């Protein structure tokens, strides 16, 4: 089953633990700026903390511009052929998400390799803002939210063995019918 690294920006606090663990895993150094994931903060309009991750695109824009054909989709991961790469950084510019990175001290572009399937960033994210989701489940949350937006959630309180409980149910907007 193929899984995708997915971001839930609403959950991100901007703590950058993902950046740290990525750099430690791949470079063995404590340097958040040598990571293949970055948190972008915007403020105050809009307020966002958004991890930028490689989508491992099936038609990778980075691979298309690579002059030495050093980027290939293998087993769901766009992999960089380090021997062949000439460090022109065309891929960094071409990625529509800005998810490949350059660092002055690094010869090669910094490209996410999903840590072989169990990404450190996902394991260590304290808020679950990064997830590995089966490909067939992508968009499911949005679909559900979209469906729910057509209904109005109502609540009733009731008592069960002296304990107050709340039940929620969806009521279809009658006025629109």
């Amino acid at each position, binding site marked *: 089953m193929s899984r995708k690294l997915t971001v839930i920006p609403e959950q991100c606090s901007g703590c950058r633990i993902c950046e740290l663990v990525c750099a430690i895993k791949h470079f*063995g150094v404590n340097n958040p700026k040598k990571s293949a994931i970055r948190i972008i903060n915007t403020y105050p309009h809009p307020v966002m903390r958004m991890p930028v991750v490689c989508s491992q695109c099936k038609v990778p824009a980075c691979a298309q511009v690579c002059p030495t054909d050093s980027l290939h989709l293998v087993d769901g991961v766009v992999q960089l052929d380090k021997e062949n790469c000439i460090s022109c950084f065309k891929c960094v510019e071409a990625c529509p998400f800005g998810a490949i990175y350059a660092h002055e*001290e690094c010869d090669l572009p910094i490209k996410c390799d999903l840590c072989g399937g169990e990404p450190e960033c996902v394991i260590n994210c304290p808020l679950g803002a990064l997830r590995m989701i089966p490909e067939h489940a992508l968009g499911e949350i949005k679909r559900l939210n979209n469906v729910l937006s057509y209904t109005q959630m109502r609540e009733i309180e009731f008592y069960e063995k002296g304990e107050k409980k709340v039940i929620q149910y969806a009521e279809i907007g009658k006025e629109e019918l």
Partner: protein
Amino acid sequence: MSIKGGYFKRYLQVNLTDKSLERRELPDAFLQKYIGGRGFGAKLVWDNLKKHDFKINPLGEENLVVIAPGPLTGAYLPSSGKNSFVAISPATGLYGDSSIGGGFGVELRQSGIDALSITGKAPELSVLYIDNSESSIIPMPDLEGKTCLETEGIIRERLETQTAHIATIGPAGENLIKFACVNTDWGRNAGRTGFGTILGSKNLKAIVVRGHHDIPVYDVQALAAEANKAYKYLKEHKYYKLWQQQGLMNVIDYANEKGILPTYNFKDSVFSKIEQINGDTMLSDYKIGDAACFSCAMGCANICLVKNGKYTGTVIEGPEYESCAMLGSNVGIDNFAAILAANQLCDEMGMDTISTGNLIGAIIEGYEKGIISLADLDGKDITWGDDDAVLEMIRKTAHREGIGDILADGPRRIIEKWPEMNEIILQVKGLEQSAYDSRAGSSMALAYATSDIGAHHTRAWTIAREMEEGQNWSDNDRVETVIYHQTLRPLFDMLGVCRLPWIELGLNEKHYEYFYQHITGNQLTLEQLLALSKDVYDLTRQINVRLGVSRKDDTLPHKVHASPALTGPNAGKVVDKEHFQELLSLYYRSRGWDEDGIPPDGTESKFND
């Protein structure tokens, strides 16, 4: 002894008057002895004091401000985003420091230095730009009067940088109000003791840092293994989720329940409208996102937005407990949206929320009691919970208009103008008391009286422990707990990490020994690190002693001795004067200081290296 990591072993020395920017070496002996952060600051400030024969005008060119993260700042371990500001404070005229979280200190380290020191005064409003190994002073006089957040936005555009971290001052700093703060990362402040004021006096509108260097770590894999243990401990803690959800806002209910919440300028210590300003209200109506400092899994900050009513569109990172209590219950405001608006205004003006809420509360009570007249208030009355009047007072203080001009000069000036206000304002050494009532806990009172920066809870926060221990707690335990806090908590400021994982979730302090060892390769134990921290406390005391401090200044606000809270679990309680003096003597003896609170002969020579 050898330092194999943790430091770049140099700091940037800036003199704004002659525009010199010099990178200077930091010898291993210095690094080992003063560790970083507040330790570096205290030592460099001490050296500067000696150079000027102990005569320093806090707003003069000669005042040296040190901005220093620590050897652990930016490293992979829980909550390593702290950075200290140290100088002689314009609020107290004594040693002052303040620390910020966020990512400014991490970025400062990544530019390849361990600290930054600034003296002098720029001829016109300027920005200090540190871009990796290159640094420059850029005049930007057109930023005059811009708010902190506007300034950050303009600088980002002008210097074309989205990833730099920027520290700014607002109009309050430019106008030299004594409790102006330094704002970083869109709303994280070095709040106390007037660092915005000092930068304002130096014509320094902002400090921009950007860096990409590896943070030197001696043994990355050992550090990661230790950090993972600590993160795992936090994750399994029963209050971990509560901290992520409510952060410091969960303290509001706690403080109210225990009867230590500042209410109506400490006339009371419980607030009847608590449910309108507590964490649950924030969660249900205002919170739109989490925020965390660098490498922090607890993420105690909240992003709040007002979605309706007259404050619609107000958005801030915050409030945290202190801001919510001081701008809320302390001035009688029961509308959470108004608290957010007041907090946002303080952030924009660049002024400390604790001092601001404390002083406005005192003014309201002074007016209520007839000490301050309507004419003194420029003809506009102010009562408890009048949010419009509170916001107006903040604005007037930042711009020094009318009565704001007096507030801007802090408690000493207010007492000078209206001597009876001495019984109303809660302050020690000229610094307004923060948001934990100490009348119910003599250890907390002792903590405020003996804190080296004035009545702030950062050095020791023993109130929770005292509530648990109750009346049977021995004086000896009270004193020893205050001293232990005053030793461990400043150690966090020296290492450059946050103390909340320890104080709130009980992360064992032993972890920090391992973090320090893996990062520096230097085998100091926790006990040795604590001993160094205790030495720095002697140093900051010695700085204050040289500036005139003795037992006569280790006092408590009038109210703490004389006017108890009216209701709640601690109604009727005050700190007995004689008992307090006994505690103070016990405290001095335990520290090895004399009856007058003076460290022994030979203390100074320890720091003349």
